[in-house]
């Protein structure tokens, strides 16, 4: 339904647009104008002249497509199993993949090297038996490590969508004579497709923006993100013009993908009348066991970096040298006694950002999905913009824009919170939107036709329907915000280190044991709300219990 110009929804849309223009479009404008450089040297002519830049663009696209494909292949079946079947240890399988979201990528990359690097456990074992593995550096390492870092995003998106899917549709299809498998594919796929596509797109953008893994495992494969980062923060000879140019290229790249996704979604929009989700089926027999084991293997592989982290946190270290097998609690004691500030900072900044972000993205999504008007297409595209911006670019844009002038934010906690909100905005919007697509218009229309004013109808009818999804989105926003590094590390100021920043600093100094201790605390901080939400408040975050 369309909202009229001049209605309360129209003015709300306008207000939201102004907020976005100040905190998102203006910093972005500053970055993009930077790419034309000063004087005769335009970043764009350099880009076309140097083959390594074009090579990097091609590689980035290929890597993005490859990792997006592998994450979907792994995550969709896993999500299906987690949502529709019961098996021993299911609650563990359903929650643990979330941890991969927060394991510092540097630790993930190190763990993969411990297994498959030049001196890796498996590499040496196979070499002893006459099998020489190809080098893990380059494409194999990038694809494997990034897949296991990012498949969780598709997993979460798909679980939520399958949960929202009305199993009566499936039963109807079956009663009309299609086989169970075929009916599932034909009926369920179109409904969950927007969610899968949205999260797959997110993976693509994460790959395009990824720096941490690419720099360690990339080997000789030049990538856009690494070149951008180098242009931005190189120790010497940094190049702000090229940084802006390369960032602009990735913006263009992701915009393109965004349009393709829109086009696919717009071709078949499915509104599901509120129905009942499917009951989780208990798995029996060999096929059940097989599925369970396959799901288990994926989860175990993705948790290996966690094992490294936990072991590291309790291992004695002298400087950068780890004494594996010599256990201690000294690392954690040191953290809590000497330097707990990063923990407090993280809690305050990420908490504030989560509350603001959820409120903002729920409202904006509601406008975009349910109150389409002249302004909402603009809202839709602008809120998706941060997808196209790497964290580094967001950070630099904010510092450029709010350093002085009418709103000086540099040196305050405000700019960190702002960076968090901007960075995770599309995530919140996508989440809320995909839920709203499944809330039928008829319910709200009924409320309004019974005489309840529009805003009250939203607050009293739509919001309660969205509540479980909002709670889930809040927890997930918290998860990704508290783990955010690349934008916050650009904007933070002295004494305002967050947990990820502290971890990054320690890893960069080679102090893996202390970094692991902070990493462990970070994981607890992330898991606590999830546990409280699922156990205490019985919010159904990840699994389907219809």
């Amino acid at each position, binding site marked *: 339904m369309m909202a009229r110009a001049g209605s309360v929804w129209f003015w709300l849309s306008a207000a939201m647009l102004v907020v976005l223009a100040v905190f998102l479009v203006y910093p972005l404008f500053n970055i993009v104008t930077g790419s034309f450089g000063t004087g005769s040297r335009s970043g764009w002519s350099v880009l076309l002249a140097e083959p390594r830049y074009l090579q990097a663009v091609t590689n980035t696209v290929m890597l993005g497509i490859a990792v997006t494909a592998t994450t979907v292949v792994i995550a969709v079946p896993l999500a299906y199993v987690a949502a529709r079947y019961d098996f021993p240890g299911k609650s563990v399988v359903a929650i643990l993949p979330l941890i991969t979201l927060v394991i510092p990528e540097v630790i993930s990359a190190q763990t993969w090297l411990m297994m498959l690097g030049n001196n890796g456990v498996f590499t040496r074992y196979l070499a002893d038996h006459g099998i020489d593995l190809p080098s893990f550096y380059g494409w194999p390492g990038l694809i494997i490590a990034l897949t296991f870092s990012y498949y969780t995003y598709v997993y979460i998106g798909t679980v939520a969508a399958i949960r929202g899917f009305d199993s009566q549709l499936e039963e109807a299809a079956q009663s009309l004579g299609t086989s169970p498998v075929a009916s599932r594919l034909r009926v369920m796929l179109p409904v969950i497709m927007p969610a899968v596509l949205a999260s797959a797109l997110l993976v693509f953008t994460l790959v395009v923006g990824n720096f941490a893994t690419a720099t360690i495992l990339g080997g000789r494969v030049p990538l856009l993100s690494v070149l951008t980062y180098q242009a931005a923060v*190189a120790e010497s*000879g*940094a190049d702000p013009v090229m940084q802006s140019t390369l960032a602009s290229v990735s913006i263009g790249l992701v915009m393109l993908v965004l349009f393709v996704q829109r086009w696919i979604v717009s071709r078949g929009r499915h509104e599901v009348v509120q129905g009942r989700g499917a009951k989780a089926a208990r798995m029996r027999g060999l096929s059940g066991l097989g599925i369970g084991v396959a799901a288990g293997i994926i989860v175990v592989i993705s948790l290996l970096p966690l094992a490294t982290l936990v072991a590291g946190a309790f291992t004695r270290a002298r*400087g950068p040298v780890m*004494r594996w097998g010599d256990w201690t609690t000294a690392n954690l004691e040191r953290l809590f006694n000497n330097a707990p500030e990063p923990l407090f900072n993280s809690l305050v900044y990420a908490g504030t950002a989560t509350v603001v972000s959820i409120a903002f993205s729920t409202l904006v999504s509601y406008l975009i999905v349910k109150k389409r008007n002249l302004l909402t297409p603009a809202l839709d595209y602008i809120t998706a913009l941060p997808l196209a911006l790497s964290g580094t670019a967001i950070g630099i844009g904010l*510092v450029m824009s709010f*350093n002085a002038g009418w709103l*000086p934010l540099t040196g305050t906690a405000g700019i960190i919170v702002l960076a968090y909100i901007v960075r995770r905005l599309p995530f919140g919007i996508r989440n809320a939107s995909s839920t709203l697509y499944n809330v039928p218009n008829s319910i709200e229309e009924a409320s309004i036709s019974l005489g309840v004013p529009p805003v009250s109808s939203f607050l009293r009818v739509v919001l309660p329907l969205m509540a479980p999804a909002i709670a889930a989105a809040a927890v997930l926003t918290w998860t990704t915000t508290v783990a955010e590094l690349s934008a916050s590390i650009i904007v933070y100021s002295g*004494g305002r280190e967050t947990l990820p920043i502290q971890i990054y600093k320690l890893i*960069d100094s080679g102090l893996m044991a202390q970094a692991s201790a902070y990493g462990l605390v970070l994981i607890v901080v992330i898991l606590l709300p999830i546990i409280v939400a699922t156990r205490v408040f019985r919010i159904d975050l990840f699994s389907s219990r219809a």
Partner: protein
Amino acid sequence: MTEQTTRRALLGGLALTAAAPRLARAQSGAVVIYTPNSAQAVDAVKEVVERARPPLRINTITGGSAQLLRRIAAEASRPQADLFWSSSANTLGDFRSLYQAYRSPEAAAIPDSLRQPEDLWTATNIHVVVAMLNRNQLRGTAAPRSWADLLDPAWKGRIIIADPQNSSTGYTILWGVSKLLGEDGLRRLAANLRVSSSASAVLRGVAQGEYAVGLTFESNAYGYVAGGQREIQLVYPSDGTFISPEFQALVKDAPAGATARRAFDMLLSKPVQTALLEAAYRRPSRSDIDVAKLVDLPAMSGIRVFPTDETEAAAKRAEFLAQWQQIVAAVN
């Protein structure tokens, strides 16, 4: 929002924006240092400085040198940093207008050759290039003693270095090699090298046995020796190695005012430089500290140094990097 920032905002409203935050900071005795240095180094300094009377509190912002310097430039109208600690003269030279000339009384103990003539920056420590060797990964190859040894094709794919494009360590080493062994030597070394875009991955790569040799500064690699990882050894090439002093600078209009200058002096003082040597293995710029007595590093006099011209290295940077990229493309 903290009470302090609220008060700041109010004062700002009274058109006292320029003076108020500065006053607050100067009174609290906190100094903000922008630094690319490691957490060990920062902790070592903090430990000494925070015990000083009257107390001095240090907050650090870390990041790459150029990243931080650009940030100081961006903040020039409203400075946040008091000191920049520390980087090579070339990196600092690109941002000359950001610093306040200051001659510290502590500089008397530092050789003239390590001081900038206008006192825009002062040397804090000297980096010495080493080959960090993992003996477990030798696999029959003799341990290298010189740059010439590393040209042997037996080392192909087993040596790692930070990308000279974005690491001054990598640049210093490759520039030195090109001067010491000529273009042909550089070409042969390049054929053996793996280049990492992450400088800290060089150290982890060698410690973890991914690579047999890492080309880096002694201060970075020595932590693994001091930590007791026995297979790690530092090789000072017998045909001469390269050095690169690092410098600190006082930021113009530093918000902490006189406290900033006091922090500047303390960073150059004997107790801080000794602590840095013992905790972070930074070879001091002061001539009154006996290195070999305090840590298991050779005295400067026992190391053969091949002199390179840093000014020339900086002036020809673009040219050299272009040449380097051609070489890399040709040997791979």
